[in-house]
């Protein structure tokens, strides 16, 4: 328990950038609730809600979105139901849905998801696209592709092409929309499993930042002119977030576009270790104490 307490204290480096930091420190001591998204390719939202509630689930819908907090469940794991096996819903944190809402996929579009496994966002996009258009869902990790494949199959997604390439160098073609939910230090997922969470060392973070910048650069290569890149991570460190966006602005001449996201959020960080980020108001930071979910950073970049 002492070690766990010490881990939580590592978040104190963000004391000056996370609003209402005391509430943040309180909520990360609590377990993160499960959220689910109804697979509307297979079932209507209300029909699934009725079925799960008749089995003893208590679901709280977020606003008028396809996002339900599981307030109470009669099983240990929220996937231990016949409805889950039939592909009627997907367990996905509310914060993880936000980058897809920002990207706003519509039926018929072609979209590249550069780091897709296990497929939460790719399958959500496919659902919003009504299985029309095409998603290329890529991941470099072959083992993680297995979970992506299993989710595609269970959910009945028929418009995804899965590839196993290095997102730092691969060429897929030209896209109007790209999602790069970049590999990151994952601090926003801390509440899911605080006992096993390991904070990145400085050296590991430097390696991640290098990869993230290379991936953004390669996203630029795969974007059409005027195309949109949604860059997201599930971590709080500005080096992996605003710093990478600054790289895209200064080295790739990309434009930061204001983000609209239908969940409570803060804007980006203005300054970190004497480095300023002039575009900070256009970025989004989602914090667990603002909506009882995980953490997420989102920026939208346009190719000029």
């Amino acid at each position, binding site marked *: 328990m002492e070690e766990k307490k010490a881990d939580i204290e590592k978040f104190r480096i963000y004391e000056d950038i996370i609003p209402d930091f005391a509430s943040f420190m309180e909520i990360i001591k609590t377990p993160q609730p499960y959220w689910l998204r109804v697979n509307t390719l297979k079932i209507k939202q209300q029909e699934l809600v009725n079925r799960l509630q008749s089995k003893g689930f208590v679901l709280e819908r977020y606003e008028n979105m396809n996002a339900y907090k599981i307030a109470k469940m009669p099983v240990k794991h929220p996937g*231990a139901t*016949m409805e889950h096996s*039939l592909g009627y819903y997907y367990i996905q944190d509310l914060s993880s849905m936000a980058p897809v809402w920002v990207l706003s996929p519509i039926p018929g579009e072609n979209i590249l998801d550069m780091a897709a496994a296990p497929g939460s966002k790719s399958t959500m996009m496919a659902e919003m696209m009504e299985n*029309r258009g095409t998603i290329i869902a890529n991941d470099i990790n072959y083992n993680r592709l297995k979970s992506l494949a299993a989710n*595609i199959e269970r959910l*009945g997604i028929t*418009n995804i092409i899965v*590839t*196993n390439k290095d997102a730092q160098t691969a060429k*897929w073609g030209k896209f109007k929309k790209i999602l790069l939910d970049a590999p990151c230090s994952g601090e926003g997922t801390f509440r899911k499993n605080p006992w096993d969470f390991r904070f990145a060392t400085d050296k590991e973070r430097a390696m991640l930042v290098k990869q993230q910048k290379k991936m953004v650069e390669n996203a630029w290569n795969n974007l059409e002119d005027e195309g949109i890149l949604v860059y997201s991570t599930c971590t709080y460190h500005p080096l992996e977030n605003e710093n990478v966006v600054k790289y895209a602005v200064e080295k790739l001449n990309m434009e930061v576009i204001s983000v609209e996201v239908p969940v409570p959020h803060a804007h980006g960080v203005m300054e970190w270790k004497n480095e300023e980020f002039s575009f900070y108001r256009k970025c989004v930071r989602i914090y667990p104490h603002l909506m009882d979910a995980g953490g997420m950073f989102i920026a939208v970049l346009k190719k000029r």
Partner: protein
Amino acid sequence: MQGGCSLQFSRKDEYREYFVERFGISKKVMMQYSFWQRSQKVWAFSGTLITERNIEILGVKALTLGKVPKPSTAFLRVVGSYATRNVVTLNSQDALKFLRGEELKGEFSVDHGYVIVRSTEDILGCGFYADTLKSLIPRKYRVQNTWI
């Protein structure tokens, strides 16, 4: 998935006819999908863009080829609600048995061979009927005792 040495898919839309003929699914529904063969597997894809080489997965596996094609539970769960023949409808008790992988006795007015099995509410998946109804639900989808 092919373990990192991706074989190429080749387009074989003739497999669309299998679903039209065997299950009476309308051509209009099936025209939403193109069909792609790799080795003994056929995949159904509703996308509109194929510029990719070295693809790992393309849509959903629809058929495994053998003496006769075997439809996948995953794809039947996508198109099964449009089927007009060779469909077995189970009551909720038998549906649960079927989802547990149990064999069911009984006579059903369907042809022998692969059938679509459903309950009043859900498309459950693929079965094989020859005097008894065998469940071909993959193990990963079978209902466990601890589930509800």
